[in-house]
């Protein structure tokens, strides 16, 4: 099987740009990144079907290099539909995020920040225990301590 090198280079550029954009905090850039990733992968699948530009039509008497493999094209169709749905969903989510916070930037998790800023000191476990705590009391309710009668 021979592979079109232009396809592979374009795939590489699309994927690299896509991954770079996905690492951004701005949601519209992330969306653009995801679209580029989707297209890059689709090209990769297409190039896995061989180089031929021939139609994906098969006749029993046709030699193998005279038609192109239809399966990658079917896979791409499915992948396009899925990317389309996910893109639409993300767009709706970005719009919602913009309506709620009027910012296009992904916020930090507040719980995360709280945990990272908390100290190792734990009130429940590390606070000094008072000397005279005991659960055992005599009839008048006075605590009984060790060594006392």
């Amino acid at each position, binding site marked *: *099987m021979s*592979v079109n090198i232009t396809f592979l280079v374009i795939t590489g550029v699309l*994927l690299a740009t*896509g*991954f770079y954009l*996905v690492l951004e905090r701005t*949601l519209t850039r*992330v969306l653009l990144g*995801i679209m580029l*990733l*989707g297209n890059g*992968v689709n090209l*990769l*699948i297409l*190039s*896995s*079907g061989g180089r031929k530009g021939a139609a994906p039509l098969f006749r029993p008497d046709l030699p193998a290099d005279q038609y192109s493999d239809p*399966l*990658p094209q079917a*896979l791409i169709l*499915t*992948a396009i539909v*899925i990317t389309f*749905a*996910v893109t639409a*969903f*993300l767009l709706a*989510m*970005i719009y*919602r*995020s913009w309506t*709620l*916070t009027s910012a296009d930037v*992904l*916020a930090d*998790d507040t*719980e*995360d920040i*709280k*945990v990272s800023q*908390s100290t190792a000191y734990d*009130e*429940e476990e590390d606070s000094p225990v008072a000397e005279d705590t005991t659960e055992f009391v005599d009839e008048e309710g006075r605590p009984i301590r060790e060594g006392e009668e």
Partner: protein
Amino acid sequence: MNFLDLAPLAVVLPIFGAGAAFLVRRRIKLQRLITIGILCVTLVLEAGMLAAVWGGESYAVHIGGWQSPWGISLMVDGFSAFMLLISTVVSLAVLFYATSQGLADGDEPGPVSVFHPAYLILLAGVSNAFLAADLFNLYVGFEILLTASYVLLTLGATAERIRAGTTYVVVSVVSSVIFLMGIAMTYAATGTVNMADLAVKLPQLDTGPQLILHVLLLIAFGIKAAVFPLSLWLPDSYPTAPAPVTAVFAGLLTKVGVYAIVRTETLLFPGGAVNAGLLVVAALTMVIGILGAIAQTDFKRMLSFTLTSHIGYLIFGVAVGGELAIAATIYYVGHHIIVQTSLFMVAGLIERRAGSANVTRLGSLAKLSPALSLLFFIPAINLGGIPPFSGFLGKFGLLHAAAQDADALTWVVIGAGLLTSLLTLLAIIRVWARMFWRRAADAEIPNPELVDEAAKVADQTAAGGAQAPHLGLKLARELEAAALPWGMRYATGSLVVAGIALTVFAGPIFEFCQRVAAQLIAHEPYINAILNY
């Protein structure tokens, strides 16, 4: 006509159910009836499927009569049938829980009416991923369940859920892209995406391309299964969702990733080329996850961290390989699904009972909520690995399998496993001591309502004195019944009982797991069932 030819119904029924449930979205009672009915029928079907393959049979269903490797095939063997049945049991329990919650909160039509259709589609995706016998169908199964999970995670679209949902969606999409790259390269290298065909053709490749495909697929599944360092998205995104959604996600979604890892490791890449790496990753997943859990004050976040931490045990089992380790992994997957889901359901109950699931605000729950305490305690110590529960049996099986002719690295990971088990117990006991044992007034941020209720219960107990000591308990039970609808309690209880059943019937179940493991390692049953039409 074999009974197992009905296997596609496990995917088709929920899909059609989702359509029907969406059509009747204005009539919420009918919608509930359809969803529960569909799940019950699916459950019966899957129980039948598991019974049919219990003895170790494998059966391939060729959709539309197209022969493999050209057509789409579904594989029913012990592993897929076991996972199907457990996932449906869990989702039915969660559905009852959600329904009861909805009934108690009043039936408001609105965006929430999309819950039932999305839930059914999620299940269809999960079933499809379990049954898929080719990589691309597995990808489609993943996408179906992920798309449904996006909707469920952002239900109601509050600011917090949108923030968490964005992280989740972006991470999931990236993992899908990597999976798709893996599929494209696999197809380019072998000319097939059928797993049985791949099992024959992949070993004929050079080791270089094999390793690339192997690692690509592992990364894709590793993100889905939340394996360290690809796990950090999970504790950020799960806890904000509604309680039933978090419960079902915790039970099923990561385990679909684990299922895919077990399948590919045993069937497609049996050489164990990356086992040493997997061992290291397993140890890191376990230890770092559980350290994260100890640092949390929010119970749901703590549970999310224990969830990722215990995925490490499953990866450990896969990395050790061999019949016993794989059998223990399969048993542990079952345990993990049931226990994590029941704990997240309990977290929802705690939130409902006490207004928050943050340990800094809680106390006195053992006195105030006796049934809830029991529902928490059993799965919690099960998770902590206390004998005789299934958590102990699963971990024992894994460590026992690993200790047989173990090298130095394996011993280190065994140590990490034991440490993680101990730390899990610590995390659980800390929560127990704070939420349930200490007085509500001693909490860092006391909840006045809880303090008030605790005082009332204490008064009643004192008033009853020695003659009627149960008066306080009676009041506590009344307060509990008012806050927690019976359906939610019983749904959680049924899953806790399922967890105990996994312990009681551990003998036959583990024997079954061993049969399944032998089948997975042998390959021939799978390949013959698919390719010899």
